[in-house]
């Protein structure tokens, strides 16, 4: 199992908040570095005072006058008021203005007119579905956006609270039942960025990843055109048998394949399954062996996920996988 998943690391994408690839994420990362430097200064100051007390242990404290029952009370007050009230207030006000006056304008929901396109992200237990309003395109686990384009991301949920989070592109936003939360999605350069559900959402919260593919605008337009089209008809006799297995069996009650009678909405839309790199919320790579094993034993990879293990004959499984692999 460990070996199987090791291969997935090759699927690309990291989710490091300190490796930003957008204005918003860069501002947040820079803010952190400054805050961290100040924080280490503060911690060093307090540690220094404690170490000073340790160095002078067993000796009478500062404040000299041996007749004074409370030596050093007056300078003590000055330090407590100066360093305990005035100094932190100055630091906090400065931080407040920079973070909540300036940077927040980049990270809060974008103004409606300022974005070029909209993507809907819908959290499900336990995968992300992405829709492109104005087209029929629906995908799962993998989101494509054009580079250097302001994308209005609308995060909603189909069940419980999730949190949409691609740290290298922006901060996170929760999906709240009955509400639409929005953030700006923007990437400086093409690449693959990993994200993950950040709000605990049940048994398989750990396996609710996503990949954001940032493409050139032309490549993105081509991709979207293809995703918006209905599924390709099965090309071989084997794949045609697989389509029958899919449509006559339990699969179609939970999954949709546009262009066929399958229109379930519990599991991910599989119309262009074969065009994706990963399966099951970026849990396993989308390869024939994994796909076959997932169908018969999904509970091995994601215990508790909503797809039961199916007992298919070898022939049925082979046909089904052939059909799914044709859904490009």
């Amino acid at each position: 199992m460990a070996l199987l998943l090791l291969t997935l690391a090759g699927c690309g994408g990291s989710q490091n908040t300190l490796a930003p690839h957008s204005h918003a994420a860069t501002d947040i990362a820079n803010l952190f570095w400054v805050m961290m430097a100040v924080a280490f200064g503060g911690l060093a100051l307090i540690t220094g005072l404690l170490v000073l007390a340790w160095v002078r242990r067993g000796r009478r404290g500062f404040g000299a006058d041996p007749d004074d029952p409370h030596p050093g009370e007056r300078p003590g007050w000055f330090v407590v008021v100066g360093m305990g009230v005035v100094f932190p207030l100055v630091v906090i006000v400065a931080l407040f203005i920079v973070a909540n006056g300036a940077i927040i304008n980049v990270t809060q929901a974008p103004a409606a007119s300022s974005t070029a396109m909209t993507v809907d992200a819908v959290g499900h237990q336990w995968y992300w579905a992405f829709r492109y309003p104005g087209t029929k395109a629906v995908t799962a686990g993998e989101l494509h956006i054009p580079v250097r384009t302001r994308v209005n991301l609308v995060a909603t949920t189909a069940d419980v609270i999730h949190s949409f989070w691609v740290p290298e592109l922006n901060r996170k936003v929760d999906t709240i039942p009955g509400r639409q939360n929005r953030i700006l999605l923007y990437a400086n350069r093409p690449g693959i960025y990993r994200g993950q559900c950040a709000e605990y959402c049940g048994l398989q919260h750990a396996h609710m990843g996503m990949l954001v593919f940032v493409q050139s605008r032309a490549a993105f337009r081509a991709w979207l055109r293809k995703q918006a089209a209905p599924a390709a008809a099965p090309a071989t006799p084997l794949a045609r048998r697989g389509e029958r297995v899919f449509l006559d069996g339990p699969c179609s009650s939970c999954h949709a394949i546009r262009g066929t009678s399958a229109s379930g909405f519990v599991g991910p839309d599989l119309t262009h399954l074969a065009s994706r790199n990963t399966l099951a919320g970026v849990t396993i790579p989308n390869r024939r062996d994994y796909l076959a094993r997932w169908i018969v034993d999904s509970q091995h990879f994601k215990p508790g996920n909503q797809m039961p293990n199916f007992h298919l004959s070898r022939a049925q499984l082979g046909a089904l996988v052939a059909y799914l692999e044709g859904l490009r």
Partner: protein
Amino acid sequence: MWQSRPGVLGWVMTTDHKRIGLLYFWTTLVLFGAGGAEALIIRTQLIQPNQHVVGPSVYDQLFTMHGITMIFFFIIPMTTGAFGNYLLPLMLGARDMAFPRMNALSFWIFLASGIFIYTSLFLGIAPNAGWFNYVPLSNAKFDPGHAIDFYCLGIIFNGISSSLTAANFIVTILKMRAPGMSFNRMPLFCFAFLAASWGLLFALPSLTADTIFLFLDRNVGTHFFDVAKGGSTLLWQHLFWIFGHPEVYILIVPAFGIATEIIPAFTQRRVVAFPLVAVAELLVVFIGFGVWAHHMFATGMPTITVVFFAAATGVVVIPSTIQVFAWCMTFITGNARFKTPLLFIAGFIFMFVAGGLTGIMFLAVPFDQQVTDTYFVIAHFHYIIFGAAVFPIFGGMYFWFPKVTGKLYFELPGQISFWLIFLGTNLLFFPMHIVGLEGMPRRNYTYPAGLGWGPENLAETIGSYITTVGIVVLLANLVVSWFRGLPAGPDPWHGATLEWTIPSPPPEYNFAVIPKVSSAYANWDYADREEDRRKLAEGVMVLEQGHEQPVSSPVDGWWAEIVEMPHDSPWPIVLALAISIVFILLLLHLWMGFCFALAGIVLALLGWHGEEPQESEA
């Protein structure tokens, strides 16, 4: 007159605050062991990517129970129940709490609620939606069965105990002070417990309402949190955090109180800026009620709301920085002796400042929204809760061990235990900052390889093992010292407050003569202590006629009247049993039985009031 019954019956029926404090101590120590074991399993599961020590279902129960246990069943009952119960009357110069039987009742309810909620874990159906239990994940649709019912009822059950304790503490601190102990002469420890008790009393109703709503939604079909029927899921979060953030200060302010007793004893100096520190202890809890929504910055609240709560979060920093610098200046201007208790307090200041500084970072809303729900937050609040609440608890265990047992602990193993715990917790919690910034979300039962999170997690797990060893050394030291330690005498540290004026362990009646107080550091007022000894010899102010105790006026702490205190009583445990039956029947949905059991509570209350103490004739 103040003698307890011998044997087990004496403990079951006791109303002595010291015995109740010890009962709390042993019970919370067992529950600390349970919460610690849960943490160790969690850390072992996360030692490397894709481990299978436990599956997701068990893991979810473990982290939920870890949170519930450490907050509701360890830190609150350990600080208020054990330390507060044992020490407050001793510091105030009183012979018992204001309501001794209510005190016993809160212990028995606490014990029953602990057994109640741990039954769920042994049945394998423990709460599994996290300690803040967000809806809709915790509603009947997504979490059928009894797990969340255990949560709702267990929290309400435990809340009764905490509320009783808080009310008792407030009255005790306001009314049971020794003559002369006006507010400006009250030890800082008592200010801290006054603040925490007010906090508990005002914060808990919000959580109780929240859990009652959820219980009704799950079992009766109401729609408080059901968006489809006009309810609100965010209502749960608001009500939860209106409790949940003051709760953080309720956890750490008693620890501040412990620190403000240990520091003077080991520096032989009054705390610098005493009045500022006293006010800061009260203010931190008060302002803490205005910051709850900073736990919800990622929920999509309007910008103006978010910024308001960020500003409030900035304000709440100030009382804490005042205290930190006051402690540090006391270290420096005093004559510091770094014995084990003071080491733990120095460690506590370091940890609290480290956790506080990352806490200040969260008032930067964009940064909060980036790292909330990641291990960065886990690192932050473990520096606060382990570093700032548990370190002083450990320090306090060492500090008051001679008072409670009459024996000295062994110093060298004590210092070793400190360094193991200090290094262990930093190795355990510091890498969590890094792995959180690298994008690791919390509450994941496993994580993929290839994201670079393995080395940090390995270090954290090793740190958790070192911390465990340190805690074992600490406990072993205390147990061995209990049997083999040298006699401590009444005042081994030359401590500052009244508990050091009486023998160790304290007699049942605490103070043979009602002490005179003319400063917050009464044990250092030698003239007053001399006068107490003279009065004892002359038989003045000893109140030996009855089970009696003076009551003070609330503000200036002067002599108001003398009351007869209740004796040992069976009714607290009987009433606690009746209340337990009510909760069990609610859990099993036996509504008719529930109504009959309510009658049982009424009967127990009647029995209780049948033996009221008589008005004193004196």
